[in-house]
């Protein structure tokens, strides 16, 4: 391992849906992906069909493809209120052999239920950070909820998101709550920022959460790259999530630009802070899918990195060591 590997996580474990797994066994990790993704409420829509057998078959095929191409672990980073189905993920992991890490957390504000925004109190004050912290922490210490039925295995991370136009007061409560839950439970935090990556990162760091316990997703957005946010985030010691690999849209840089950005960050000494993922959606309900294979980084993007001059060591650090260090429960 190179000098850039800061932490020794040899003896650590990672919370998967089938229980704690030695961190060394994760293999190649896709750290920002979605398995079943359901816009809250879509499950009640008259024209949305949730066929669990069909969903299982689709997801199992995609996970097997990931494994065939060398993948070891998928992180479902969609939080606890966007279609997360823990029992389905347990069956998928058992069937495919892919480790699945599922997440607590929710956000942005717009995606929350009224329970958190307009509670039955007078006045209806939105939830403060402390209550979110407790809700999220219990997903680790007591297990992830199957709503109104039971708790299952421990969440492997807390994921939250800020409103794209800029962090709202309730988004800030979510971020601070996520940070506090991470502090007390030892799992990491995944944040997706609003209009200012570094500012939003500062909110969780303000809670005294070490930067090495945070991944900032979406840093391959054009606005973030233009603002120099990837380097800023890495400099602060947080993980740089370049997690739209394969995206062809107006919001993100291209794969060629992304590969060059990775090379720059490695050159600047931040190879131990880079994470790659695709934000692929295995099955989407109530919104458009991002139908990339989970194996896209391995099959298509790694050759671009090699062309940038990265060696096997660098690639291994980014795909295996970095996510292992992030996900290891401290």
């Amino acid at each position, binding site marked *: 391992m190179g000098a850039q590997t800061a932490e020794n996580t040899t003896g650590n474990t990672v919370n998967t849906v089938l229980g704690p797994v030695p961190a060394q066994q994760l293999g190649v990790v896709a750290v920002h992906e979605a398995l079943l993704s359901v*816009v*809250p*409420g*879509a499950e*009640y*829509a*008259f*024209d949305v069909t949730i066929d669990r057998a069909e969903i299982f078959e689709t997801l199992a095929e995609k996970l097997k493809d990931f494994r065939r191409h060398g993948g070891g672990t998928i992180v479902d980073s969609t939080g*606890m*209120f966007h279609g997360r189905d823990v029992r389905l993920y347990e069956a998928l992991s058992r069937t495919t052999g892919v480790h699945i890490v599922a997440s607590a957390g929710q956000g942005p504000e*717009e*995606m*929350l*239920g*009224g*329970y*958190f*925004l*307009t*509670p*039955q*109190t*007078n*006045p*209806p004050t939105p939830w403060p950070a402390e209550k979110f912290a407790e*809700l999220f922490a*219990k997903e680790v210490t*007591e297990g992830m*909820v199957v*709503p*109104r*039925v039971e*708790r299952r295995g421990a969440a492997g991370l807390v994921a939250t998101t800020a409103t794209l136009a800029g962090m709202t007061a309730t988004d800030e409560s979510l971020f601070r709550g996520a940070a506090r839950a991470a502090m007390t439970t030892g799992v990491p935090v995944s944040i997706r920022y609003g209009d200012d990556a570094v500012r939003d990162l500062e909110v969780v760091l303000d809670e005294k959460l070490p930067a090495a316990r945070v991944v900032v997703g979406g840093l391959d957005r054009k606005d973030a790259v233009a603002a120099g946010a990837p380097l800023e985030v890495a400099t602060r010691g947080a993980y740089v999530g370049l997690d739209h690999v394969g995206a062809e849209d107006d919001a993100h840089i291209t794969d060629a630009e992304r590969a060059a950005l990775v090379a720059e960050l490695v050159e600047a000494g931040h190879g131990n802070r880079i994470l790659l993922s695709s934000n692929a959606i295995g099955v989407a309900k*109530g919104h458009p899918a991002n139908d990339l294979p989970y194996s896209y980084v391995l099959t298509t993007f790694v050759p671009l990195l090699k062309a940038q001059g990265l060696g096997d060591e660098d690639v291994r650090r980014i795909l295996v060591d970095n996510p292992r260090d992030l996900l290891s429960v401290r």
Partner: protein
Amino acid sequence: MSRVNTVLGPIPTEELGLVAVHEHIGYGMPGSELDAKWWKSPEQRYEETVPKLRQFHDYGGGTFVDATGICNGRDVDYYKSLSAKTGVHIVASTGFVGGDTALPFFARASVEYLAEHFIHEITVGIGNTGGRAGIIKVGVSRGGRMTDLDKRIYRAAARAALTTGVPILTHLAIDAETAIAIFNAEGLPLDRVLFGHVDDGVNADKTRDTWIAEQGGRVGFDTFGYETELPDPPFWARPRKERLDHFLRFIGQHLDKALASADANCSALGWPGVKGHTVNYIFEDLIPDLRAAGLDEAVIKTIFVDNPADFLTIQN
């Protein structure tokens, strides 16, 4: 043929009997299902619910209208089992208690989509339960004024009511001018709308109950029993006598527009509920109070049988 949709299928209006027109088997804000502090086992839920419905039936209650919206823990399969085993007819709602209880998928939806969804739940069924909605729930979000989303839901509800003949039940009757303007614009007769919660402790002063009746709307005094005299009253409680006097004044002028209910939870889902308050307040407290105030049996029948029958009967 006159009919009303219940969770076990359409029934003739003549079979409704005494109606509790605004009640809840169990209500919880969307998202409360994530907070395990409120979870109850199925054993506990049945144990809390069945005796109340059985008592309602034994008192002579016929029909329980569940006013729980789409994302509030509405559970039609559960209602079907309760209805089949207790003999109480249960009418389920489509629609939303307010814009602030509609989850993002519906909050983003167009008026056309919302109307299509409501119509589907009324004419085809709710999810794959086979149970059809017999009423459309709409409401005003917290804050006292209708939000843009509230207005979209009211407009969609008006269209679904016109298409299907099923009536509309509102949560809160504040900002009624805005609501009535929408119903008028859509061409929905106001006697197809029950403007609910005109009597609650927070909003009664701000609610134009007689004005709504004069426009042709039906008026719901339907939070009976949420009283400041309770050991631990909720914030919307009101002194018992003040509410009763308010109701008596109203029926002196607009008996044909008056409906009454208790808005109680049999087994609350995402909040503690209010201990001691049940649908049976109607029989144990309200009807005795009305009799003590000198109302005769014909008036009581008008309030609890005839008016709800007119209101609930599918118009087409």
